[in-house]
């Protein structure tokens, strides 16, 4: 499945280019963070990658043959929560894979242990807090052992400790062998988690570099301005 080679990827539904010729290569390991201003096309890039939206141009070449049927998962900023228990919500991820119900529950319980929500397995999911919802959604995706996991602002509107917990889980999922592509607006998080940074603006990749170089020596003007715009906020901490 890797490397994934994205060439000249375009999505311009009614003439307006949301993705305007994306070129990107993703190797088989690590966490790649996608940064960029609002409306840059970050969420759209993830949705095209997981097959929700068909691009209007360009190619995605999946290495080692084709893209596996269930190899790509995505966690949304506002995860869906069914009106049932936390356990059943997590087990849901295995339903399309034809795993028997008892086994689904067993595996869901195991993954709930790892994200620290096991003690709340039988509670009603819609009652969870924002941070707990995000962890539930991560667990639901993790359970299916995806090769590539797409995360859209998983810590937006979470308090620092909830965000830290989500970051811990993301690291664990990576250690488990899942490739991660994640959108964030939090530059501190980008330095903590990212192996490399993709900077997107106006539907184009302006820069794709290792994290440290991105923050010390950004190549593109847009990235430099973006970092500078955010820097005073970062140093306040």
């Amino acid at each position, binding site marked *: 499945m890797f490397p994934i080679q994205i060439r000249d990827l375009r999505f311009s539904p009614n003439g307006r280019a949301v993705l305007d010729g994306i070129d990107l290569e993703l190797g088989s390991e690590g966490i790649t963070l996608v940064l960029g201003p609002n409306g840059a096309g970050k969420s759209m890039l993830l*949705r095209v990658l*997981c*097959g*929700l939206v068909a691009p209007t141009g360009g190619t995605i070449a999946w290495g080692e043959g084709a893209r596996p*049927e*269930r190899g*790509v*998962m*995505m966690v*949304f900023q506002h*995860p*869906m929560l*069914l*009106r*049932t228990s936390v356990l059943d919500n997590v087990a*849901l*991820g295995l*339903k*399309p894979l034809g795993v028997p119900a008892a086994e689904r529950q067993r595996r869901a319980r195991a993954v709930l242990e790892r994200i620290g929500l096991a003690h709340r397995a039988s509670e*009603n999911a*819609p*009652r969870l807090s924002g941070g707990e919802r995000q962890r539930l959604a991560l667990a*639901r995706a993790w359970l*299916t052992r995806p090769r590539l996991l797409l995360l859209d602002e998983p810590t937006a509107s979470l308090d620092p400790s909830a965000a830290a917990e989500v970051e811990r889980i993301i690291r664990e999922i990576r250690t488990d062998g899942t490739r991660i592509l994640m959108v964030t607006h939090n530059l501190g998080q980008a330095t903590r988690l990212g192996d490399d940074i993709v900077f997107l603006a106006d539907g184009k990749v302006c820069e794709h570099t290792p994290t440290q170089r991105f923050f010390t020596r950004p190549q593109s003007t847009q990235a430099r301005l973006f970092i500078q715009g955010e820097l005073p906020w970062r140093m306040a901490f």
Partner: protein
Amino acid sequence: MFTSTFADALTLLATFDARVAEIVWLSLKVSGGAVVLGTLIGLPLGACLAVGRFPGKGAASVLVNGLMGLPSVVVGVVVYLFLSRSGPFGSAGLLYTPTAMIIAQTLLVIPLMAAIARQVVEDVWQRYAEELQVMRFSWWQSVTTLLHDCRHSLVVAVLAGLGRAMSEVGAVMIVGGNIDGATRVMTTAIALETSKGDLPLAIALGLVLILIILALNALAFALRQWAMRRYA
């Protein structure tokens, strides 16, 4: 005259009059049976209309919505034609039996229940569609998942079906024949007794009908309150 009629009606109820009890029981069996079948067919049908992507989906939704207001006598006549001796299912000998009444009422409530289910499920589907697609849910898995998720709201569809079935006269009159002790239900009995001038029995049955419908709605209200507290 007016008050004495009411007093007689209340006496009938207070003494658990056997005639009243028999009629009420048959009503519950027929309409209950129709709603069980209507639930098994109408709710999945509505959910399929909400989730499915197929040519003619819009037309199918319009058709279901249109059939929602179908006059019950029309359903009665159609079922009559199919079940009458010369009809395609005449040999089954179902005409003027409770089974025929269940069939007619089932056909009557399916569009109503399907239309309500489609609306309820569609709203939730809008919010869940992308995630279910990413998890590679088949459309049938989506249908069953959504039906389960909407179970508390779908009670409304079931109740609407039950209300429609219990209060209709035309279809059961035509295919049941209003035979005393065999196919006489509350609505047909009320129509007959009123025309015969036995108003106390008609009013007693009318009161029972209203009470049943009120009780069901109170139950549904309580259930929704409970669900809202639990999942809010």
